[in-house]
């Protein structure tokens, strides 16, 4: 498979390494022409406002929405989760997303950087170490969305931090920072394999 990684800002290099380490071709996507060459897309961690701003300026929002509507598999981590949400709370005024997952995501839900943390969690029945950096959580989802992992917030309640709707996958945490390829492999082997003929 040809995996594209949206390379406008953020830790796209780490996602490219994860795709290559999983045995796939990986290329950066900064323009609509580059998007049309890829089978699946990863939206990296970074600043969601910056990425959305650049996506708008360089005419990527409509083409990405179109590919999502056509069923292209997309995985977003952290900022990428925000960009896949149909609705966001605590965003910057007028902040746009690509959307696709019928959920509301709260930005910086776990707090500021001093509250950033790492924690063990169960994802797809496997225990893994997850790194949360100024991370969002999923505030509410429709019945179309499958919850793959959750974590307890400072409010004492459990909040979804990994979700899937069809060919779209999103996590609040950053598997690309740990060298653990299991979340990427889940995306390539379970999500993409079913969606790409």
């Amino acid at each position: 498979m040809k995996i594209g990684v949206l390379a406008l800002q953020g830790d796209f290099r780490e996602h490219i390494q994860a795709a290559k380490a999983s045995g796939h071709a990986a290329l950066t996507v900064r323009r609509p022409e580059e998007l049309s060459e890829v089978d699946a897309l990863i939206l990296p961690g970074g600043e969601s406002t910056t990425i959305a701003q650049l996506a708008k300026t360089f005419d990527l929002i409509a083409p990405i929405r179109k590919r999502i509507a056509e069923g292209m598999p997309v995985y977003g981590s952290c900022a990428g989760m925000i960009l896949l949400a149909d609705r966001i709370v605590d965003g910057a005024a007028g902040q746009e997303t690509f959307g696709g997952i019928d959920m509301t995501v709260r930005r910086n839900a776990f707090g500021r950087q001093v509250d950033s943390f790492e924690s063990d969690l169960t994802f797809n029945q496997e225990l893994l170490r997850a790194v949360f950096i100024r991370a969002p959580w999923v505030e509410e989802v429709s019945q179309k969305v499958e919850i793959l992992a959750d974590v307890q917030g400072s409010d004492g309640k459990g909040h979804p931090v990994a979700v899937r709707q069809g060919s779209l996958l999103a996590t609040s945490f950053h598997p690309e920072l740990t060298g653990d390829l299991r979340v990427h492999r889940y995306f390539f082997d379970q999500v993409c394999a079913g969606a790409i003929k």
Partner: protein
Amino acid sequence: MSEAVGTARVKRGMAEMLKGGVIMDVVNAEQAKIAQDAGACAVMALERVPADIRAQGGVARMSDPDMIEKIKAAVTIPVMAKARIGHFVEARILESLGVDYIDESEVLTPADYENHIEKWDFKVPFVCGATNLGEALRRINEGAAMIRSKGEAGTGDVSNAMMHMRKIGGEIRRLSSMREDELYVAAKELQAPFALVKEVAETGKLPVVLFTAGGIATPADAALMMQMGADGVFIGSGIFKSGDPATRAAACVKATTFFEDAKVLADVSRGLGDAMVGINVADLPAPHRLAERGW
């Protein structure tokens, strides 16, 4: 569930999220909003930009917490703030305010001319300046989770940033070419811990994200630094000391992403109005060179 905050991975990981982005100096909430709307990946909250610190002289200190709070309230992107070199109490105050990153900065007047802050002890991550590899590794050894080349802040003259990026890059390449038994002497010469020297020699890069700072005033300057291997750029006085800050800020953000595309760089360089006036670093008398602060 074993939860841990303030780990090296979480601190260094925060800097990974800033990569490919522009961090802009702002002195009030209005400027912070302009920076965020232009696509800045973070803002540095301070009372005076380096060009004004230079012009006005006197002792430069941590900013007023009220001013930092106002900027935090105005934007959703990360907010950084500066503490004086070695001033661990200013750093504790900034940590308690919940700033996302502390810059232990030579732009402020140093509080300690021998020691830097012991940074491992904090939950908040630190970025520190460096003019060469040894200095970068000493800061990382003290707990810095991000390095920026120093350049010469507040000048609009990119030549020192260039010199520091070349120096750091050149020293890394030199280590990569060495036999392992030569790294002991290299560590001695760099005045840096052997373990970090060995890690750099093996990986061919710093163990933390490397931004560049000091004297960047145009989109072309930002792209130049990215082509020199910077992971991202800090722009201090260059934006809000220029004729049209909003346009210049957006142009620098685009140039940092499309740093290898001369056509995009040409497009974003058009019609930016006046750049900051600037000072040639060579004309600065030695005591006024900020890059020489830090040891």
